[in-house]
């Protein structure tokens, strides 16, 4: 959060070659400043790799979305037909609804819990370091392995408990239940992503000086009020980051879903990412590329909306 202009001005004047000394105005010196060629070399690897590995495939893929390609062999141009068919396809619609709904629920749940944990872990508690370490561990384990462990628990331990307690709905694995499987996925995804969000909140919370709280306490504010009036506004920027990045991450849910249900039962928990990937094992290459293009646009729009709603109001701590 620092401003450089004054330093920059100074630097340029001191580095300008013999000609443009203090007499020349800063802007003219800036335009004539030679860029040390090695900077280009520094920048080049990043740009090259990025363009080859992301921009190029994106453009190629976009091109294929207008064809009926199955990923290999002959294909023809079919214009916008893939896109039109996409909007009429109930399976695709279902995947979007599931993914968006799941992402929304999870981002709220995960952030509320992560924030609560962050607040708790920056309070005066015993065993703080140990507890912090424990709560971060889920972030460190691979998503798919977490999914397998929970799949076991959902399929064996939970039903056993359900049967013992006589709760009908829990007697079978909830993952095999078309209407409840998504809950399992939300739980596991939240479990594995809360630590990340929590760490960011902690980073924000530690910048809030104690004195603010003390002053408020002296004025008679309750714990709740202190939370609302001091804490939340000061970390609003972090809340923003977490929700934007979190939501985008959940939209791309894949690992956890593959491990828990593989999109099932039927297609109840198939996420957009999963249906896109089927495009190259299921021969629907062109079609799923159109799906991917639409997905990209939706991602950007949603991120844009989120930024708009909170523009200017976000603060990043003291």
């Amino acid at each position, binding site marked *: *959060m620092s401003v450089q202009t004054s*330093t*920059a001005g100074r*630097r340029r004047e001191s580095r300008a070659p013999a000609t443009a000394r203090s007499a020349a105005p800063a802007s003219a010196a800036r335009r004539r400043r030679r*860029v040390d060629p*090695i*900077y280009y070399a520094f*920048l080049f*690897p*990043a740009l090259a*790799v990025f363009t080859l*590995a*992301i921009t*190029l*495939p994106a453009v*190629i893929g976009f091109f294929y979305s207008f064809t009926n390609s199955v990923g290999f062999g002959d294909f023809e141009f079919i214009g916008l037909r893939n896109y039109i068919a996409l909007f009429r396809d109930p399976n695709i619609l279902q995947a979007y609804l599931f993914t968006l709904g799941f992402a929304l629920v999870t981002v709220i749940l995960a952030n509320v819990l992560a924030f609560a944990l962050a607040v*708790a872990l*920056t*309070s*005066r*508690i*015993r*065993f703080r370091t140990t507890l912090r370490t424990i709560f*971060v*561990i889920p972030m*460190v*384990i*691979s*998503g*798919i392995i977490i999914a*397998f*462990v929970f799949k*076991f*628990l959902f399929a*064996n*331990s939970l039903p056993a408990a359900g049967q013992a307690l006589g709760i009908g709905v829990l007697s079978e694995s909830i993952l095999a239940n078309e209407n409840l499987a998504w809950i399992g996925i939300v739980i596991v995804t939240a479990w594995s992503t809360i630590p990340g969000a929590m760490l960011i909140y*902690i*980073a924000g919370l530690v*910048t809030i*000086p*104690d*004195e603010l*709280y*003390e*002053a408020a306490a002296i004025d008679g504010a309750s*714990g709740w009020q202190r939370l609302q009036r001091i804490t939340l506004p000061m970390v609003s920027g972090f809340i923003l*980051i977490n929700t934007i990045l979190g939501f*985008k991450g959940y939209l*791309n849910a894949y690992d956890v879903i*593959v491990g828990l249900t593989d999109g099932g039962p039927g297609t109840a928990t198939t996420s957009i*990412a999963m249906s*896109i*990937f089927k*495009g*190259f094992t299921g021969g629907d290459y062109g079609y*799923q590329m159109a799906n*991917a293009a639409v997905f990209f646009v939706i*991602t*950007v729009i949603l991120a844009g909306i989120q930024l708009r709603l909170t523009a200017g109001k976000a603060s*990043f701590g003291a």
Partner: protein
Amino acid sequence: MSTIQPTVPRTDLAEAAPKKRRSGLGTDRPNWPLTAILIVCSLAVIVPLLVTVNMSLKTTAQAVDGSAFTLPSPFSLQGFAEAWQLTNFPRGLAISAFITLVAVVGEIVISSLAAFAIVRNWDRRLFRWSFFYLLAAMFIPFPVVALPQVKLTGIVGLDNPIGVAILHIVFALAFNTLLFTAFLRSIPLSLEESMRVDGATTWQVFTRLIFPLLAPMSATVGIFAFLGSWNDFMMPSLITTNPELQTLPVLQQMFQTQFSNNYNIAFASYLMAMAPAIVVYILTQKWVISGLTQGAVKS
């Protein structure tokens, strides 16, 4: 201009009051009820892990009944031995390690170089736009470019761990460059200037001054890179064609039907796959928080 220390609390408000230890909302004595609640909540994390360890130590005969909470009797390392053999754990470990190493080193080097170039040439359009160009990538999710990437990597012969490592580097570029640029802006130019006056080239400035100063952020970037690469499932499963060159997470999925009800083997396998990451994290956790504080706050 600010220095590279973490943001300090506002001392103007402190005045006569002695600086208290960071305590957030609490008061002087430890908040026992909160501690207790936290301990109970931590069970949500501990229980699945304990179940994993528990099941992995059973004999196959006992493990197949699928009850998570009975203790192993007898204790047996049979699960580990079989998992080791069945999934060819050493090979998976080597592949995962290879990809992670390449990705971590690549991410740190490429991003720090690019960030340095960008920050020092912010006035030039090329560099400024490059920054936003790279940043835009944060919003390109893998599924969007996955299909063409699979095709391309196949065609150029990168449908293997090397290709996976390169892709890891690319997808992390945006975030890493962001972190490095933020961090770099807080390094005072005076240090650099005095080096140049002594005749140092830009390369020397980078290697002798900047890169060492970037160490805390490099550590943070490195750790996130490690975790991201080591635990990744999506990319290796789609990009690498040869099943013998697969990473640990993908191996767990490939062997699901072979594990079937032999839970001790399955959980032993999961445990062995998780362990390196947990160990690395525990050893390096302090850099994570400090890095986030400095980097995230500043950006």
